[in-house]
């Protein structure tokens, strides 16, 4: 049974280590804040100028001057700092963010990421993603394994315009967790009810399957 969006977010939360500064993309990544294990000191960055983002604002308690990068009303955690977009991207570009968790349209076995446009059809824009993919120390992608047509989003080469080349370290989908390695795409974990063969059948690159997942 595929992981739900919440379960993907929960799984992604395990990527966060104590003391990390983390940037979360729009969509499933934003939900990661809900699953942070207690006892870890983690600071979330919102690239519109907030370090120390708290949970989403409760209905009726929104501050109309306080949004996250997804333009949703948010809150501040104790120890938050506010600053300009230039400072925010100085942080990102300068390698100060330990981890960015981003959504994707396509990911390739070489770590290429496409997540900002389908030419002639859909253009969201790259927002801060092109800065984040090269700036953050580690990029984890969370997404559905296949698109709405049932086609795999895990490819040998991306077909869509890239956000960045060779930037992704780990892919967490609704069906599996995979790592981009020098040897190829390594299967790391399976969602309940999926076999390695199931994942291979919906994944273009040939997976490296460790013995314990065979």
């Amino acid at each position: 049974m595929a992981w739900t969006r919440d379960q993907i977010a929960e799984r992604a939360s395990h990527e966060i280590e104590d003391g990390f500064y983390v940037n979360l993309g729009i969509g499933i990544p934003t939900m990661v804040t809900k699953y942070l294990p207690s006892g870890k000191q983690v600071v979330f960055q919102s690239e519109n100028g907030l370090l120390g983002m708290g949970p989403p604002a409760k209905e009726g308690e929104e501050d109309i001057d306080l949004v996250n990068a997804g333009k949703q009303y948010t809150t501040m955690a104790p120890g938050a700092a506010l600053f300009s977009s230039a400072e925010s991207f100085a942080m990102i570009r300068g390698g100060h963010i330990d981890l960015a968790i981003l959504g994707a349209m396509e990911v390739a076995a070489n770590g290429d990421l496409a997540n900002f446009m389908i030419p002639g059809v859909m253009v969201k824009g790259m927002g801060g993603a092109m800065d984040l993919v090269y700036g953050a120390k580690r990029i984890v992608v969370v997404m559905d394994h296949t698109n709405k047509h049932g086609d795999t989003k895990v490819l040998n080469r991306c077909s869509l315009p890239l956000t960045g080349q060779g930037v992704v370290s780990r892919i967490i989908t609704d069906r599996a967790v995979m790592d981009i390695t020098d040897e190829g795409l390594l299967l790391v974990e399976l969602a309940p009810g999926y076999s390695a063969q199931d994942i291979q059948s919906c994944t273009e690159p040939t997976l490296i399957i460790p013995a314990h997942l065979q």
Partner: protein
Amino acid sequence: MSVYTSVEKAIDGINDGATLLVGGFGPVGTPCGLIQALKDKGVKDLTVISNNCGEEGFGLGILLRNRQIKKVICSYLGGHPEFERQYLAKEVEVELVPQGTIAERVRAGGAGIPAFYTRAGAGTIIAEGRETRMFNGKEYLLETGLRAEFALVKAYKGDRLGNLIYRRTGMNFNPMMAAAGITTIAEVEELVEIGDLVPEQVHTPSIYVQRIIEFRKTDTGKL
């Protein structure tokens, strides 16, 4: 520095074909009063440098829907259907620039830096035909500073000298836009006297602001 009491007069000189730097990220930090004045004035063929060209029916989204904008330099169109529609229909010209690159290009413009290198966009379509250079074995793009004849910014408080303070995530692009405008027009929720702001807490020093106007927050501030 001039203090204005009418948004109409505060935008004096912004005419058809003007290029504007406009602060704001999503609904926050947007100079709604000045934008409304531009709508009322009916200026056309504007080129706008702004992270996301407002929202549907809000901020710059109003000028976009009213077909007053010819070109937008921005990083994001998502969640703004009219903007996406005009773009795909080629009714508005769009130059997509990574968000950090817009922020830094505008900062560079205001700071007298004609060009700098950034890694954002390397190996992607935005690098096509562009000058690149290797540093430490990695490819970087040459990006140029951006200035414009006018900058429209929004602050929480401003004093009569032009010092500005932002609230929460209302800072976003406003400080860089303010510095990069030849004429910078600041819309503030509260105009205070010179000396009322704490020097350590000023976010945009007065030197960057040429015009200021108080425009009390209304429901237009809420999506």
